[in-house]
């Protein structure tokens, strides 16, 4: 019931998410020659940097959409209405979160699908691992967006902080500029950003390196759990009188 209603609300305001899905496609088209030059004679390596890098970058922007959707609930006090009914807090959280998870997954699928269909991205061992990587990364984004909604005081604040965080994490994680080309200080910081592990989980899935993939996935799940804990702490707080 809650998930269906939330999905309806998401579809009522699709503009931002359409933007965050189409923009990376344009960027992929214009950046492909540049990445080809960075990886001479290795087109799959170039695509394995470009497509997941953009998937990571624009998932970070999509985090704002997740956060805004949940912040609306808090500011509009509809969360209180839901919490005042017989539904359990867990049911409400899952009902609110599922459509946003679906939204981020669709974005990631479109991006990787276009990379496959138009630019020839080919995972070494099929798409199952990549799908798993997309799921774990989207889960982390969802949880981080939920936590952002807990701390933001207004949509404008969330939007501004989201832009800064998305650009900063993208730049420092090696999602846009390959880590080997980053300045030393930035390269050292990279593993401390969630974007780095998002990129890793995708790249290891494309290369079918299961051990590294599991490690990156575990770190992303830990980030998701931590964010979810912060979000739940906020959602259970009583609001003003």
């Amino acid at each position: 019931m809650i998930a269906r209603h939330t999905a309806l609300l998401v579809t009522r305001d699709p503009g931002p998410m359409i933007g965050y899905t189409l923009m990376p496609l344009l960027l992929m088209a214009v950046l492909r020659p540049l990445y080809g030059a960075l990886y001479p004679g290795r087109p799959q390596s170039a695509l394995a940097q470009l497509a997941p890098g953009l998937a990571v970058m624009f998932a970070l922007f999509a985090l704002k959409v997740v956060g805004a959707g949940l912040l609306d609930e808090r500011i509009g006090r509809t969360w209180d209405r839901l919490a005042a009914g017989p539904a359990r807090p867990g049911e409400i959280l899952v009902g609110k979160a599922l459509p946003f998870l679906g939204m981020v997954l669709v974005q990631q699928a479109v991006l990787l699908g276009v990379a496959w269909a138009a630019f020839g991205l080919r995972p070494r061992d099929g798409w199952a691992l990549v799908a798993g990587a997309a799921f774990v990364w989207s889960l982390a984004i969802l949880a981080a967006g939920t936590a952002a909604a807990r701390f933001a005081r207004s949509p404008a604040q969330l939007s501004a902080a989201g832009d800064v965080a998305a650009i900063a994490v993208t730049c420092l994680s090696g999602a846009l500029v390959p880590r080997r080309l980053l300045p030393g200080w930035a390269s050292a910081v990279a593993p401390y950003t969630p974007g780095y592990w998002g990129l890793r989980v995708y790249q290891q899935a494309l290369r079918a390196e299961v051990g590294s993939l599991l490690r990156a996935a575990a770190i992303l799940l830990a980030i998701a759990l931590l964010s979810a804990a912060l979000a739940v702490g906020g959602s259970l707080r009583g609001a003003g009188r």
Partner: protein
Amino acid sequence: MLAVTGLVVGYGGGPPVLDGFDLRVEAGEVVGLIGPNGAGKSTLARAVVGLLRPGRGQIVVAGVDQRRQPRAARALTGWAPQELALYLRATVRENLRLFGGLAGLGGARLRSRLKLVAEAVALTGLLDTQVRRLSGGQQRRAQAATAMMHEPRVLLLDEPTVGADPITREALLAAVRALADRGTAVLYTTHYLPELDGLDATVAVAAAGRVLARGTRAELLADLDATVTLTFHGPAPALTGAIRPPGRPGTLLLRGSDPERRLAGAVRELGTAGSGADLVRLRSVAVRPPTLDDLYRRLGPLGRPVAAHGV
């Protein structure tokens, strides 16, 4: 019914907003909860629906202890808060479906209740309009309707008629009264006392986190003074027992529990003094019965119990 006993609720370690709040609303009864801002009216509603945890006291909803069985108690309660809390991009129908569905309605029952409730609050023609496109009064009615969808045993309405025009206000009051007639206990918070007459409601006056007075409107206002305002052409003459309001030289005020008698006495005195010249200068007379404001003033900042028939 709703039974609140000795409720103490505070925010974040501050002084309690509810401090020993006692109130009982029987099945089929409408209780108008009135009181100054900060009296704890909205806090009470938030505690009843489980959004605030009481430090002490007990809330029982239709025989279910709110603390021991919170989900069961919430399922028996309908709540429309003071602030608008609807999905603005969803239609009225979608909002009603959501809140009705969450309360356990489904299928034909949900459709039937949706139709009935929309008719009752005069929103049938707006069911497929997004809430953000409604007027303020229509939004308030839609919000009240979401709380009434499942015919709750206890209905909490927090200033539901703010911004409503007289006709739609009447529609909402009739819907609330009809629900009470079917056995719902209604706690109706308002600053607009006359609408409690339309609900045939008894009144509870809250201040400083407690219920200070409980009774019918007539009982509570019975021993409060009415005000008679006499306005004269030119300066007001001398009149026994009259008050001269500062800055209004042509006006006299008479206060008392029997305004007609006070007015008759004043007219007699004006007619006899100065061969009736002062009476000729009388321009207008206005009688104002005691109001909620007078009751607040009498209760004072911390309140002074004036229970008509106890709490």
